[in-house]
Structure formats: structure tokens, C-alpha cells
């Protein structure tokens, strides 16, 4: 039952864990392209709270999202630990490269599928369908975030990728 909640058992073996608003989140390293120190972020006016702006990663313009407002977390200022996870999401409308602000990035970890449980329907801060499951690592809860779902439902990435062309 629990395994059906995550993409594959493989994904659980290779996760990158990061911190945001005091919570520990994780995404499979399969979708991680790189972790970078925040370069200058160009704000996009009128783009809403989830948009942090645009960054230049070696000549490629990549959008950056700040998910903290989505999870009702305070937007702490950038500090020495702040990183941007550059992720390659596989959306229905095509691949999309996106940066996600993380307050701190932990090591790559491996999780025991047995510890992964479904998200309780009430009493959590997570909007519906944003978390695939919750596992345990070093006595802490690790929230397995479903970024594809988040991008499609909350960041407007459900539109055809060539919409802008």
C-alpha cells in the first residue's frame, strides 16, 4: 500500500533531502540536475507568490519557484545555507527545468520503504496531493514532495510547453 504512493522503490534509495520552514523534504536524485548557490534572481513582476524569478545557469534562463507560501511557511531571508535545487521535471506537457529554493540541503539519503506512510488527510500543513508519502530518516519525518504535481497544479505548468513559442 505504501509503495504505491511513491514512484518506484528505486526512487526511495536515492533521495536528496532539503529543509524549508523547519520541515524536511525530499525528491529523488533522478530528477536533480544540480544544487547551486543562489545567483542573482530577476523578479518577474505580476507573476504571483510562487514565482521567485529567473536565474541564469550557464547561459540558460531557468525559472525559480519559492514553495514556502504554498506550504504556509515564513519566507526566511537568504543566508549562507540557502541553495537552489535545479530539477528536471517530467510533465505531461513536456520536460521543464525549474529551480526550487531550499533553506538548507542535506546529504543524499536512502530510505526504508517500510517506513513510508500515506499522508494523513487532516492535521498536516500540506495541500492535497503535494506530498506522495512521509518516511523516516534519523528520527525525523521526511516529506516526499510530488513536484510534478505541484508544478502542474500550482505553477501553471499544465499548459502546453510550446505555449510560449
Amino acid at each position: 500500500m505504501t509503495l504505491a504512493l511513491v514512484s518506484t522503490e528505486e526512487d526511495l534509495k536515492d533521495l536528496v533531502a532539503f529543509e524549508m520552514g523547519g520541515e524536511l523534504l525530499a525528491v529523488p536524485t533522478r530528477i536533480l540536475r544540480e544544487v547551486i548557490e543562489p545567483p542573482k534572481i530577476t523578479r518577474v513582476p505580476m507573476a504571483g507568490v510562487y514565482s521567485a524569478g529567473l536565474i541564469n545557469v550557464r547561459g540558460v534562463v531557468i525559472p525559480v519557484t519559492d514553495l514556502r507560501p504554498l506550504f504556509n511557511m515564513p519566507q526566511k531571508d537568504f543566508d549562507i545555507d540557502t541553495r537552489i535545487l535545479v530539477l528536471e521535471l517530467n510533465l505531461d506537457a513536456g520536460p521543464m527545468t525549474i529551480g526550487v529554493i531550499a533553506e538548507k540541503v542535506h546529504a543524499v539519503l536512502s530510505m526504508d520503504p517500510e517506513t513510508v506512510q500515506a499522508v494523513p488527510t487532516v492535521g498536516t500543513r500540506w495541500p492535497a496531493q503535494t506530498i506522495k508519502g512521509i518516511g523516516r530518516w534519523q528520527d525525523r519525518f521526511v516529506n516526499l514532495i510530488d513536484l510534478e504535481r505541484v508544478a502542474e497544479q500550482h505553477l501553471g505548468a499544465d499548459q502546453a510547453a510550446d505555449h510560449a513559442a
Partner: protein
Amino acid sequence: MIDAETQEIFRQETEALIESLQDALLALNKTPDDAELVTQVFRDLHTLKGTGAMFGYARLAEFIHDFEAAFEAVRSGNATVTPDLIAVSLKAYDLIVALLEGEEPPVERDAELKSALAAVTAGDAPAAASIDAPEPDVAEDGEVEAWILTFKLPPDFMEIGGNPIAMLDELIEIGGADTKVRALTDGLPALADLNPAEMHTGWEVILPGGASESDIMDVFMFHEDQMELSLKPVRKEKPAVQQDLREEELQPGAQQQEAEKKAAASDRKGGTAKVQMRVSAERLDDIMDRVGELVIAEARLTDLASKLGNSDLMEVVENIQRLALGLRDTTMAIRLTPVSSITGRFQRLAHDLAGKTGKDFDFVIEGEETELDKTVIEKLSDPLVHILRNAVDHGLEDSDTRIAAGKPARGTVTLSARYSGADVLISVKDDGKGLDPDFIRGRAIDRGLIGEDAVLSRSEIFALLMEPGFSTAEQITDLSGRGVGTDVVKSTVEGLRGSVEIESELGAGSTFTLRLPLTLAIIEGLLLQVGDERFTVPLAAVGGIVEQPEELKKGSEPTTVIELREELISILRLREIFECDGPTNEHPKVVLVETGGTQVGLAVDRIIGSYQTVIKQLSPMHSRLNVFSGATILGDGDVALIVDVAQLVRSQGLDNQNKEQAA
């Protein structure tokens, strides 16, 4: 087996050929006496036949053979170009296209058209010149008794996939049982040096005089330039004319003696013609991407060098700057294609429409030489077909109605293309009955597109035509009901970052204008500063820069109207609209920008300067905003947004107001 790549080459080759063929046929309709055009048609058909046969399109090759014969009759003066010939030829052309696209038209169609072709070319021709008559060149200088053909293939002939035995078989098929073949072995190396994979044998083939010269030459069609070849006629009465075919052009038909004059003309043409090369669009995109990166790197270098202030370095940097810009211009020019590359099919469409509707009209094309990015041009074809159909089907009236309205009986539909700043305007204009705003309004209310009390300007009412759901079944006719709807015209054009404008006067006609950006990759941009953020606007849209008047510095509404040079002008305060922070400038500026036929002013803090802007598309996360058409990377590596001024104006609801003022 033909692989996908070869198929693709074949497709590209034939595409250019059939386009050229159609153009020539349509042009012949206007100037039937143009011998050049006849030669052109003949040449295109001949090449199509050869290419088709090589790729296994037997039916196509066989059909074209007869089609070609009709034009051979014209070429040799045994028939003339008549409207009937053109009409039948266009139908034959359609069959060729259908066959090429792998459709399976009924086989009887071939025979039908063949006999129609024979009929239209035999009608006024001398009795001897029926289609089945032997090729006229044979009889010229006395009857040919035999052909002596000697040829030697290149050593790597078999390595590149050639099959000499098949060639010999083909020759024997042409010559029949009397054909004599002799191997020429004088070129064979000593046994020790012999590589069995190489081709060293030559052949002498004697064919009977009844064989046609062009049939013989066709065997070697694609190898002529790599091989040694000579074909000599042995004549009965007069001594044989020596011809060294190696010196002949590859152009089919050049061998025919009676065509020598024409051949000389085309040789001359061949000598000055530009050398063309086919490159896949993907590679061009690759180059464009790299040039884009280069331009960004160059901007960065310039930025660093000017900070260092070393004059030797500056000199090199300026040189690199010059080279990068040159490369950019050349690359963009490669991607630019003249509008004429697609007008051929419109000529044809107009021709067909005239036939189907029975409406008499002139189709005029202006500004065919106007160039646009290749991807843009290709996507424009369908929308333009739709607009043209509409213009003829719904726009033009029949002759009686026109005469009654005091107009010339013949209508005119004009397709024109011209530059306007960084845009290209392509318009389709008809002098028909025009659009009735009241009627459109009524229908839009019926369809629930607008409320009954909606206040709309003329242009807004016309724009309703392009709303999905406006077009209805009762409007659909055989002509206009097919293909894309007018709403698709709008979305296609907007997808190319363009817009559609409709102008019309009841009783006098309508004009549909597509406004499109010249290129999708790099623009000249003006970099502006607002607070501590920077934005780019396309320089071509900028009409001027003025100091902000005192009255403007005071307020803080996002939009306002001021009087500038004795004209009222809408001002957009970017600081307020974009909610920018940061210090203001003591001498803020207003950038005057042209958009949709009207001028607005953008209030900004500082003008940084103009520079090459490589447009990076926004991800779906930001592209739905519309206000920004893309982003670009600046010399210092930061990202700046490119403002789409027309969309910005629309987002602030100034659109209607301005249009009304302009009207």
C-alpha cells in the same frame, strides 16, 4: 530499401520541383509565348520523372512521361500554350502531387489526363506531330541509323551503390534485340594491382537508330558528371555531327539539337546562377542558438573590458564585437525566406477559387520579395489560405451585383507584404462588399459572445469574427467551411507573437492584416532601468525618448494621460505597474513606444542603452503572463525581461481608449 533519410531528401527535392512547376504553369497562363517557361516546365517534369523512377514511383514516372511529351510538343513548336493546356496541366499537376503524397487516385485518372493532354496539344498542331511521333530531334539531320555509346564509370561506382549490370540491362531494353555490347578492358590494371571492388571496365554499346536519345541519356541521369560518356549518332545521309556530351550541362533536353539556342541561353543562366545548398532547419536552429550564446558572451566581454579600461584589450573586444554582429546578421539572413516561397500556392488557390465560385477577379501579389523567418512563413500558409478563401467566397460579390453597385465587374484581391519597423505586415485586401458591423454585432449577441449592451469599437466588433464559436454552420460553404477556422488564424498568428487586424468599409471591401515579428531569435533592444530592476523593449518599437515633465513626476497612478508635443498621450508608469522598489532618478525619462497603430509612453527612471537581445522563451510558469515576451541575458550575466508593450497596454485596459483616440 530506401531509408528514412533518403526519403526525406527525395521529399525535399520534389517539393521544390513541384513548387517550381506550378509557378511556371501559372506564369505561362499569363505569358503563353515565353519559351523560357516552357523549357522550365519541361525541365521540372523531366527531373521529377527521373527522381520518381529512381525512388520506385513507377506510376508517377510513367504518367509524367506523357505529361512531358505534351510540353515537348510545345517546345518543338508543334503545339502552342492554350488556356486549355494550362487547365489540363494543372489537373495533371494535382495528380502528381497526389501520387507523391502516397495517395492512390483511381488509375483511370492517369489515362483520362493523358488523353486530355494529347488532345489539347494535338488540336492545332501539324498532322505529323501527334504525341506518339518519334522525338523530333531524330529526324533533323537525316535519319539516325544507330547510336554508338561508349561510357566508363568511376572506380568507386559499385562502392557508392551503383549497379552497372542494371544499366546495361536498361540499355538493352531500350535498344531491343539488336543492341550490341562490348566491354572495353584497356583500363584494367595488372592483376597484382587489381582491387576487385573497383570498376575499371568501360563499355561500348551500339543501339539501333529507333532508340530515343533522351531515353538513352536517362539511364545515366544521376551519374553523368562523374563518368566518361559519349553518344554518337551514325546517320544515313549526312555525316554524323560529333558531340562530346561530357561538356554538356546536366540539364535534360540540352542535347537536342533544335534546342541548342535555348540550351545556350540556359547555359548562360547556369553560369551566373547562385550555388544553392540545402541545410536542415534543425542545423540552422543550432547555429542560431550558438550565435545567441556568442552574442551574450560578447556582451559580457565588452562589459568586463570597459571596466578594465585597457586600450589594447578594447581593440580586440571591438573587433570581436564587429565579427559577432556580422555573424549574427548573416545567420539571421540565412533563416529569412522571401514571401514568394509560398505565394505560388496562393496563385493556384486564386485560380481554383475563380473557377469554383464563378467570380471574376484579379489576384495581385505585392511585395513578394519581403523576407520573414522561415518558421514564421511556413506557419502562415494555412491562415492565409483561409483568409483568401473568405475574401473570395464571402467578400467579393458576383459581377451583376458589382455592376449594380457601380463597381467594376471584375473584383480585385490583393495579397501584399511589407516591412513596418521590426514587424512585417501581410495583408489580404478585397474590394468586395465589406463587413457589416451591425450584423456581426447581432450574431455575436446571438452566440452569447457579448452582452446586448456591450460597448464596442469598430475594430473590436470586427475582432469578434475571430472568436471561437462565431463562425456557424449556416456560413459554411464548400469553400470556406474547410480547413482552419478564423479563430485558428488568430491563435496561429498570436503563437508567432503576431496579431491580426481587420479593417473594413461596408460596400468598399475588407482588409485582414497579419502583423508578425521579423525574427523570433534576436532583436535590437533598448535597456531601461526602473528602481534597481532592468527591462528591455524592442528598439524598433521605440519612437523617441523625452524627459519626464514635472507633472508626471508627482503622481503615482499606474496609468495617466499627459500632453506631450501638443498631443494627449497615455503614460504607463512601470514603477507602479511592476511594483518596483529602489531609488528614483533625478531626471526620469519617458520612452515613446508605437503599438498597434498608437503611441504610448513608458515612464522609467533611466535609459541604459541599446544592445543585442537574444530572446529566451519563458517557461510555462511565466509565459502565461503575456506581458513579457521573453527574457534575455545581459552583459553582466543577469537576466532581464523583455516587455511586450502591446500586451502591457492591453493588461492596463488602455487598449480601447487608445483605439478610439486613434480612430
